């Protein structure tokens, strides 16, 4: 379990992370979302002791990461796949990590096989690796010590579709065995498929957190009819605020049953009625972080 409590990190006058609190629970995949520069990576760096917090704390099962006797055996970390000495071979990087943790060298071969790097690739220097290969190597490093907790920053970056599928299965399986997974990603679809819990951060502060179901249910209802204007009007009459989207769909915070009965009463035939979950994470993400988006997009 990862517990972040009132974590704050300031750089001079700039507050990168502002009183962030959340937990990532065992047996679940927790997705960590936020626009560029929202403070995801800073939060993750504080978690693993690379950055000192201005105030607040981050603990792994109640222990500060820096106080773990041999952290590699308890927490697998991948923050930046490109942060490796370019002159080392992939195998050498794993060997150094295994030696540091005190693991047998056989573990290196197991990991190379697990992340589907060929022996030839493992003998090449990281300078010549593609981003996807670096990600695989980074994941191998994270899994090397057979940890109970994984902290991964953008692990799907640069992976091909098969790699993304593989990563998804790997993390789901890891959580299924009781492990804790915290992963950040910009690939909202990926997060939506894989995450059980979500933490959304914007401008350094948490804007939403909870289970995926809770958060997406809160996104309301989407309805379509042959005459969207009439539907919107009927909803307004019933005291339900709604918005008419450009694609002819009507969105509202009310639940689908309510919208259905309003439409029935008004004699409007619905062509589609569902909770807005399908429209999903992207809309939620954009609306929650609307104030903090660089592009100023509103959902």
């Amino acid at each position, binding site marked *: 379990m990862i517990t972040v409590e009132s974590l704050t990190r300031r750089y001079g006058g700039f507050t990168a992370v502002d009183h962030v609190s959340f937990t990532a629970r*065992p*047996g679940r995949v927790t997705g960590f979302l936020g626009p560029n520069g929202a403070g995801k990576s800073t939060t993750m760096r504080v978690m693993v002791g690379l950055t000192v917090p201005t105030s607040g704390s981050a603990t792994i099962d109640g222990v500060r*990461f820096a106080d*773990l006797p*041999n952290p590699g055996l308890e927490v697998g970390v991948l*923050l930046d796949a*490109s942060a490796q000495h370019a002159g*080392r071979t992939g195998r050498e990087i794993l060997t*150094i990590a295994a030696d*540091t943790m005190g693991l047998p060298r056989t573990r290196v071969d197991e990991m190379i096989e697990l992340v589907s790097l060929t022996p030839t690739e493992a003998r090449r220097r990281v300078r010549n690796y593609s981003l996807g290969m670096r990600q695989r190597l980074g994941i191998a490093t994270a899994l090397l010590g057979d940890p109970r907790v994984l902290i991964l920053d953008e692990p799907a970056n640069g992976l091909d579709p098969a790699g993304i599928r593989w990563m998804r299965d790997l993390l789901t399986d890891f959580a299924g065995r009781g492990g804790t997974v915290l992963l950040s990603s910009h690939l909202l679809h990926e997060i939506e498929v894989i995450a059980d819990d979500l933490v959304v951060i914007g401008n350094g502060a948490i804007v939403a957190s909870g289970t995926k179901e809770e958060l997406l249910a809160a996104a309301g209802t989407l309805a379509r009819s042959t005459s969207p204007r009439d539907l919107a009007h009927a909803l307004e009459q019933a005291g339900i605020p709604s918005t008419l989207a450009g694609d002819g769909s009507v969105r509202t915070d009310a639940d689908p049953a309510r919208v259905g009965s309003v439409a029935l009463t008004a004699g409007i035939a619905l062509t589609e009625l569902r909770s807005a979950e399908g429209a999903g994470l992207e809309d939620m993400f954009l609306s929650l972080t609307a104030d903090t988006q660089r592009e100023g997009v509103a959902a």
Partner: protein
Amino acid sequence: MTATIVPPTSISVRRTARPVPFARLVRVELRKMFDTRSGFWMLVSIGVLSVLATGAVIVFAPDSAITYESFATAIGLPMSVILPVVAILAVTSEWSQRSGLTTFTLVPSRGRVIGAKAIATGLVGLGSMAVAFAVGAVGNLAGSALAGVDTVWDMSLSTAPQIVLGNLVGMAIGFTLGVVLRASAAAIVGYFVVSLVLPGILELLALVRDWFLDLQPWIDWNYTQVKLFEGTTDTGEEWAMLGSTTTIWIVVPLVIGLLSLRRSEVK
């Protein structure tokens, strides 16, 4: 989502985990000094240059100069340039190549990592010096045999440790610059400034300002290092001078550098 098979309980920190032993860290850091292409060639070049320097003495030196000291001096020169660079890169590559992200995640105690690097660097220094003395000895035997002169062993037992110490001082300066600057290029440039440019300035200052003449040996680390290379650090005062320059150029900046390094962000 697949079903959770194992109930998500009883996941706790493995209290049985033991801290990473320091000796293991030293071994890992030692390995990291050799396992990159640049590190590998740096160390190979120490061996190659030792042999080249020895060959040069045999070919070019007059018969009267075929002595162990000539060989030691010829080999010592390239060594005194390469070893500090080895020391610099041992520290700075963690930042310049960003491998520190993994290193300091696996071992959060940065002081221990830097300590292990210091020991590993010292071991490489001692090993290189041993190679240098050995190559020099072989060169001296071969050279005197080729020239048909008597083999001259004109290095006293007190001189050799001083030469070793002189090289370790150079490496310590490089290591310190690495800890303070944490960037390969800056630290290497910095090293050549303090070892090539600075002595000239201090020398000049001593020439034009009398009061500085007496002060220079206490401040100029090159002055005390050259004394070591010559094996002429003998009196208590000379050792005190060495202590003074070491404090100014190594101890103080190293402490400041370590304090900032321990809190600095690894990106």
